[in-house]
């Protein structure tokens, strides 16, 4: 034994253990996110049980099991739960009861020891609603114009059929409200600003002013007409949709009437086959990825966040690629290699290690307040005091992140440039090519994969970075996307939503953390997938590149 310790084997094993722990942590973390994120969309079974606290009446509980925990009885008692005497360890289950509008508490912990046997009633129904979260209960009847049309099993079929049509109509109404009316409002606002600019401009002659004002008035009138038309259509749909409703029984036996217009989806999880569940799963996932958020972001989809993240990263790439690549070429190919360039190189390197929040502070002070404020004064005085560019905007976020990721691109490109054997350069120069030609025809194409790697790494870093964005451009809920059908189509001055910030916001700022939690996991999963894919691509390109030059230089 002593010899064994002296040989150092245990220490080697301990070192191996460090690797094992790290691996377990990484893989475990990814699996945790994946399981939680993907699990959210699976229609889990609805359980029913009778819950009897000692000395209390028993109550019927209906809901989905969110998660379970084992705790000491003492801790549970101190938390205010009634636990049978003599019990030392207790399992508790978090049950999602839904029906937030009636019960106020949609997630409740129940002590396992006080539960009866779990039942899985086939009639248990889960309804996803536009407001107030999910409804869980039993369908009683289906009504049209307040009169009962079908009951029991038939009600389910009738309800399902009608819901599909109603959803179509509700979607059309949403489209009108979000896009059509939004566009008209935007244009009316533009006219207001033009009018204001006209009022503020003293150089225009009276005649011209009158002509312009008449034009604006006519345009406004036209838009208001369009608006009125849209409103009529919307009200029509609203009226039509309001005719249908269902009645459903809740876990405490009370019944509630639900209008079909407020229902997104209804399913009977205990009565679904695995295939049906899979279909449901895919549908829900698609709704999540392609939908707009509801209920303070804790429900609905994350399309604006995905869109915002991607657009910001794209704008950033457009800025960072030429600057990063050309700066790297300058440092490596043109600048005289000496102490100064070495200092610059180290500084650039180190900027990658500067906390991102520092870039955020810089972006807020310099881009938003200084540059944006100046642009507003110069070009958008009619909108003041409301800021146009002098507030959070996607362009400032992109520029800030471009600065942040510049070192990544430069370092990677430089690495690529150094890996190119000097014989290639010398050969080209010896054949009479100019330096620019050598660069353009040989060096740049050869190092393109390295540049690509740098760009991908930069994109991956930018996509996950949140702290600086909180200062320069990200908002909880953007009223409109930064890109739409109104001229100039790409609105660089708009604030935007971002996946990372969405996670922070829903997870930590929302009033109902428990309800938003699965959504946060799902969002996190999408962000992680995006970043892993980007990184794996970058790593693969880089390894491939290394292999290639290794064999060439041998």
């Amino acid at each position: 034994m002593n010899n064994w310790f002296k040989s150092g084997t245990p220490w080697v094993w301990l070192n191996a253990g460090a690797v094992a722990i790290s691996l377990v942590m990484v893989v475990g973390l990814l699996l945790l996110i994946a399981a939680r994120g993907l699990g959210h969309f699976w229609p889990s079974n609805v359980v029913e049980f009778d819950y009897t606290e000692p000395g209390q009446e028993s109550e019927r509980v209906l809901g989905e099991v969110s998660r379970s925990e084992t705790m000491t009885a003492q801790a549970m008692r101190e938390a205010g739960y009634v636990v049978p005497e003599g019990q030392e360890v207790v399992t508790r289950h978090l049950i999602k009861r839904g029906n937030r509008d009636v019960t106020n508490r949609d997630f409740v912990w129940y002590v396992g020891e006080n539960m009866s046997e779990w039942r899985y009633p086939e009639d248990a129904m889960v309804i996803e609603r536009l407001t107030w979260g999910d409804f869980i209960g039993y369908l009683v009847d289906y009504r049209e114009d307040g009169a009962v049309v079908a009951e029991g099993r038939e009600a389910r079929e009738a309800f399902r059929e009608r819901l599909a049509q109603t959803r179509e109509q509700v979607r059309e109404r949403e489209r009108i409200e979000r896009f059509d009316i939004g566009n008209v409002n935007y244009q009316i606002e533009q006219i207001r600003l033009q009018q204001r600019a006209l009022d503020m401009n003293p150089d225009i002659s009276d005649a011209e002013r009158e002509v312009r004002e008449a034009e604006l008035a006519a345009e406004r009138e036209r838009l208001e007409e369009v608006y009125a038309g849209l409103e009529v259509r919307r009200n029509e749909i609203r009226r039509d949709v309001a005719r249908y409703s269902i009645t459903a029984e809740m876990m405490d036996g009370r019944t509630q009437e639900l209008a079909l217009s407020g229902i997104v989806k209804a399913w009977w999880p205990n009565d679904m086959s695995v295939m049906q569940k899979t279909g449901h799963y895919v549908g829900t996932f698609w709704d999540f990825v392609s939908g707009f958020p509801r209920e303070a972001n804790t429900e609905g989809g994350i399309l604006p966040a995905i869109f915002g993240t991607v657009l910001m990263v794209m704008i950033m790439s457009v800025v960072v690629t030429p600057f990063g690549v050309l700066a790297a070429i300058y440092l490596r190919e043109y600048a005289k290699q000496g102490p100064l360039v070495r200092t610059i190189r180290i500084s650039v390197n180190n900027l990658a290690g500067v906390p991102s929040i520092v870039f955020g502070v810089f972006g807020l002070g310099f881009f938003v307040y200084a540059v944006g404020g100046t642009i507003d004064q110069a070009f958008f005085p009619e909108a003041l005091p409301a800021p146009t560019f002098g507030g959070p905007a996607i362009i400032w976020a992109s520029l800030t992140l471009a600065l942040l990721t510049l070192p990544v691109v430069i370092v990677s490109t430089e690495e690529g440039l150094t890996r190119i054997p000097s014989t290639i350069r010398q050969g080209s120069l010896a054949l009479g090519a100019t330096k620019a030609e050598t660069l353009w025809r040989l060096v740049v194409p050869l190092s393109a994969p390295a540049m690509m790697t740098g760009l991908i790494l930069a994109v991956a870093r930018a996509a996950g970075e949140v702290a600086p964005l909180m200062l320069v451009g990200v908002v909880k809920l953007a009223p409109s996307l930064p890109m739409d059908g109104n001229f100039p189509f790409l609105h660089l001055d708009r604030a935007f939503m971002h996946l990372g910030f969405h996670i922070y916001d829903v997870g930590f700022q929302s009033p109902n953390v428990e309800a938003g939690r699965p959504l946060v996991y799902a969002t996190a999963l999408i962000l992680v997938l995006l970043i892993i894919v980007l990184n794996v691509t970058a790593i693969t390109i880089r390894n491939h590149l290394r292999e290639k030059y290794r064999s060439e230089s041998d």
Partner: protein
Amino acid sequence: MTDVSNSSSVEQENRRIRDLLPSGEKRSRLRRWRGVKDHSARYVIAAFGFSVIIALALIFVYLFSEVMPMLQPASVGEVSQYDSPGGNPAQTVQVASDRHRELAVRFTDDRRAVFYRPMTGEVTREYDLPFPEGVTITARGRAEPRTRLVAYGLDNGQALVTRHTFSETFEEGRRRVEGAIEYPLGDEDTALLDVVEDGTPITQIAVQEGSSGISVVAALADGRLRLVQFETTTSFMTGETTVERKVYDLDQPSDEAEITAILLDITMQNLLVGDSAGRVHYYNVRRPAQARIMDSRRVIPDPDASVASMEYLLGTVSLIVGGTDGSVGQWFLVRDEDNVQRITFVRGFEGHDAPVRVIAPEYARKGFATADEAGRVKVHYSTSHRTVIDTQVADGPIRVMGFAPRANALYTVDENERFRVVPVSNPHPEVSVRALWDRVWYEGRSSDEFVWQSSSATDEFEPKFSLVPLTVGTLKAAFYAMLFATPLAIMGAIYSAYFMAPRMRGMVKPTIEIMEALPTVILGFLAGLWLAPFVENHIPAVFSLVILMPVLMVAFAFLWTRAIPEAIRVRVPPGWEAALLVPVVLLVGWFCVASSPLIEIAFFGGDLRQWLTDVGITYDQRNALVVGVAMGFAVIPTIYSISEDAVFNVPKHLTQGSLALGATPWQTVTKVVLLTASPGIFSAVMIGFGRAVGETMIVLMATGNSPVVNFNIFEGMRTLSANIAVEMPEAAVGGTHFRILFLAALVLFILTFIMNTAAELVRQRLRRKYSSL
């Protein structure tokens, strides 16, 4: 012959080739064009290169430029002066102006209020105050400057309370300020109030406005001290305002000394009375009928001197006392051990050479100005304990002084009724090295302490800008993260660089690289929403993991190398130990978590959290332990990949030599490899530390963000970076708070930059060393 034919054939060949090429002119044009392209490429690329370098330098320059104004001293502009607006020989009792310094008002002792332009002295309007004929003003008092209330005590026992207002109107984009005098207690005819019916003259008066109405405290010529409350009630039914008057007589402070100053605070609970013996008496007048002296104290250090002037600062908590000996001191009420409020000396300011005649508090900050008999004016700031301006304004005594509401000018009136306007530029008096880094005694606290509290709901709040809690928080978070990450990362690096099988290494390295790329917002969210509640419910598991994990790993190693039959052992080639240990890690982890409640029941009475609280350890759900693990997770890959690089690149002949001399692999690692690679590992740790210091999202989400000063692993913290993220969007642009946040960012920037540079230099040296070995 052959030669000729040969030469002609060469000639022919050459011509043929020349014909293939473009003409000479074309070629030279092409050459020129290529030269142009070459040159322009050079310049374009250089331009981009320089612009990038400039942009990166700009970050530093800009951050610095935002911090700079804080370091600049306050200054005084050119003093303008004019004779008293509204004319001599009347004496000025009070001056005040609007916030744009466009209109000011002067109250005189011949019962007038004169509105004038403060920059020129041009009179715009005069009011006659409704005093009866034949009385003289014997006392005057002023409520908190923001209320613009002034009270006059008369020699017939009556008092008048006035309020001056400045109303702004905009006409064609130009601002017009109009001044007016109002009487908050009644109209012009009924504004005069009886403090005492028998006509005893008033010698001193104080006024204050609170939520329930206006109170006046007056000292009378016969030594009596009287509190009169005017409670204003507006009837809901008729909208009529009625004023209810209540009179209370208070104990006289002492017989031999006469009252020289009275101050009432805005809560209407604390009354301070100064007397000619240099003492201040504190009355608690929350219930005026039972009011009595709670504390009396001499507030002037020199026993021969007396109180020359005293005034409340903004918020009426701090009392500034100026003595006839020129001393300036700050006092406020502090509860002592017996829970009694005592008048307590807090700090003294740079004094004057002559008696301090007037004290003028600022409207919106805890600053004030003092003026003495010799015409010298000093501007002080209480929290930062600074005297920011010291200037000679007049030759003689200054009798009246007031700040402009934005503290950008001082109005002074001297003995000869000469008016002066002193423009003051004093944007950041709150900052001093002491205020940022030392313990400060803030208003309402019982002792000096480190506090970061930048804003509050009320206007009279004293901002507390101690960077100590934030710095301590930053170091605390980084410390626990490093405690978790360093051993794991370095040990892992040694193993993967030196012992691990190449195939496994090819899988492990990308995994760790993925770990580095994980967005910190995801780590923070998992730490806050998953890990923190998990740890809270399984505290024993955390500790049993730390103890059991290495022990059981070694035990497994022993079993594997000694007890397992050879036949099984050889199936796993060397270098795959880590893979073998993965199930061990999982099992131990599961075991510790599962046994956690049992440990709690066996040793901690069933609830460790409660037990900790009973022992006196505060436990926050989101604490340093959680942050340490989450941030450690973020730092591990950084340290791992750099130190792995350093270990892996140790020249092979060194290790082979060591092994050839009979050293075991482990001896080679500790005696040769680690020693050679130690600078690289050191730089890895430094870079990791830099990352931990600047990390924002994890700390923001996994702690409660409370700025505490301790290293308790079960409590949270607030770091510099998280503080910036939380407060920057709300900070007023250009304000002191804004600039202090920039300072925090600059400190982070410089700190990480220096650390990274040092680490980079170490690494470069190491690389040179390796290549020379």
